[in-house]
């Protein structure tokens, strides 16, 4: 496959990224699970990053903890519960679906549904009258603008 390769060695800044080789599990499937779970856990000492993305020491500790729990045979849900038991729901980047968060999960769909409902009702109720024709002054202005 021929591609126009612009090998721009774009040297542009970045902080070091997260998972280090010495943390990774030997078993590829387990490591996959660990990465997926890590992406859903918030780094509580960082500015809005997951523990998979952050290079803070606490993030690394939590990554190691997640892998330890997986190696012990815990399920994904059990690993998440373990961390939530210690830090609360704040540590979940996907908020739980519960009474408190109903507005969050249902809100957008409600907007859509209510809007659609409103449109349907508006169409039903609208009489067949056409818009009032332009007045002379408005027509002149529009001609001037066009």
């Amino acid at each position, binding site marked *: 496959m021929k591609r126009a*390769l*612009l090998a721009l*060695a774009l040297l542009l800044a970045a902080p070091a990224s997260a998972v280090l080789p*010495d943390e990774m599990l030997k078993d590829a499937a387990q490591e996959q699970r660990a990465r997926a779970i890590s992406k859903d856990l*918030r780094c509580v000492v960082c500015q809005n990053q997951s523990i998979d993305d952050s290079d803070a020491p606490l993030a690394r500790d939590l990554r190691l903890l997640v892998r330890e729990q997986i190696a012990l045979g815990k399920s994904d849900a059990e690993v998440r519960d373990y961390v939530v038991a210690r830090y609360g729901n704040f540590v979940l980047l996907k908020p739980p679906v519960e009474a408190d968060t109903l507005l969050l999960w249902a809100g957008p769909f409600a*907007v859509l549904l209510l809007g659609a409902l409103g449109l349907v009702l508006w169409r039903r109720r609208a009489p067949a009258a056409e818009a009032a024709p332009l007045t002379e002054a*408005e027509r002149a202005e529009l001609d001037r603008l066009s």
Partner: protein
Amino acid sequence: MLAEIGHFALILALLVAAAQAVLPMLGAARGDAALMAFGRSAAGLQALLISIAFAALMILFGQADFSVALVANHSALSQPLPYRLAATWGNHEGSMLLWVLVLAIYGAGIARFGDNLRATLQARILAIQAMISVAFLAFALFTSNPFARLSPAPLDGAELNPLLQDPGLVFHPPLLYLGYVGFSVTFSFAVAALMEGRADPAWARWMRPWVLAAWVPLTCGITLGSFWAYYELGWGGWWFWDPVENASFMPWLLGTALLHSAIVTEKRGALAGWTILLAILAFSLSLIGTFLVRSGILTSVHAFAVDPERGVFILAMIIGATGTALGLFAMRAPQMKSGALFGSVSRESGLTINNLILMALTAVVFLGTFYPVIMEAVNPANKISVGPPYYNLVFAPLSVPLLLLVTVGPMLAWKRDDAGTVGRKLLVPAAFAVALFAGLSLWLGLDKASSAFGLALGAWLILGAGLVLARRWWGAGGFSWRLVRTTPAATVGLALAHAGIGVTTAGISAMSGFAAEKILVMRPGETAEAGPLAVTMLGAEEVDGPNYRALRARFAVRQGGGESSLVSERRLYSVSGNQTTEAGIGVSIAGNQYVAIGDVQSDARGQGLVVRIYWHPLVGWIWFGGLLMAMGGAASLADRRFRIGAPQVRAPLARGLVPAE
């Protein structure tokens, strides 16, 4: 001396703005032509004064004058000149001055290019712009004075955060501000219309170029920001649903809705109330975004110096502006004339549904961003976070019906159309997209079906855009160059923009389904594989930069039949002690090769360097699509029909063709 001149110019500007806020409004109410004309002169003067102040600040930054506190805190002698200049807006106070500058320039623009407008409307718009200016100038002067002196002046400054010492800083904030602040014009239009009691087609036609004038730079700013994050942050992320990113995305979503809603109001006089509401909300979200970034109410990787006291001031401004506008809306909008009716299958109804879905998408981003704040008040014991998993689950599915609609819309006739007619027009793109989806799913595996769907959706959009042009260019007598030459710029704009969405969609789908990654310890001579890439480390050495020392590693990358070389550095900046990683990126149309080194580490075979290798398929398409969208907007802006007063040469349309708009 220069700092004092700048400060003085700013104070004068505040006084001029105060006069501009009051006198033209009085003039409009009384029909006094002189007072209304004053608005135009004042707008020009305000722009001039603030330009002087901004130029003064930039010169101070360029000269590295450390007797000014702001320069001392964000610049250093060793900092390269472009970043000394760009540091002018790389901080809270300077960026507020940029805000005010753009606001004033747009105001002067209304004065300069608004001669076709009703005098009363123009005067009211200028007065409202000035009110916003007064608020922001007061905020800048009283809480965030960029010209404060530092005594004794230090010999060298604290340098700008190395992450910001990058070309992105030169362009990203100014583009974003041209966008955010540009929506102040449409806001003023909306409020002025409410005051006058009417939002007629002339008003909408006049407003539309200003919507584009704000939308185009905002699109560029967001695209650039995403691109900057990609090469800046070390592992190929390009969007993080961070509160500050969301703060720029929400005005963009509503701005897109406003753009399309204004078309309906202009053509058919319908949806006027909705257009006004969208104009108010778009700018309100810009203001709320400013609030988010500077108040410390939410944590964010982008946070400026956070200060709850400044937050209170900004919140007061938001309550004043948005509260007044929405109050006027509640009172006046119900009485405004309702527009023409349209059938269930028509261009208008398509654009109405477009509005609705865009508002629902904005609601997703809004709820996700602000829910933690709401929860703090409602249930402090249950503190929650909302991150990418939420947005990916809710935003993506909601956007699918919208993306499907984008191709259908331009094929619909105004007022009344029929589903069968539209369906027949869309047979070719539909068949192609479905075939592509089926083919990709079978070839790449059913587990990649969602990515295959995304790619097919991208094709649907790109083909749909092509269809718009094809229907224009193949007239009754076949293909005609004359038809091509006389294509309205706005039609080209539509095609470019809609194709752009398709390109971006394809890029996002490829990245989410087919990206590859490898993280390991490497020594010179070793080779690692990630997806289609085979990467060999050639060697590593220490190098010196203008204001840093670095460890540089060189790599040879083989893919397909070709080979190229990439370089990655780990830098230590001398003044601040900050460390950054620079990635080596090999760009091509098919995707990017991405290599970044970390620190020294040991594995089973001994000591080496941590290396992260990524394959990012079609990632460039994400930003290229954004660029196409911006170009489409710019093309529409250039359309002669919008340059009010320009005579029109109408080429006769072939039978069966629907005018693009």
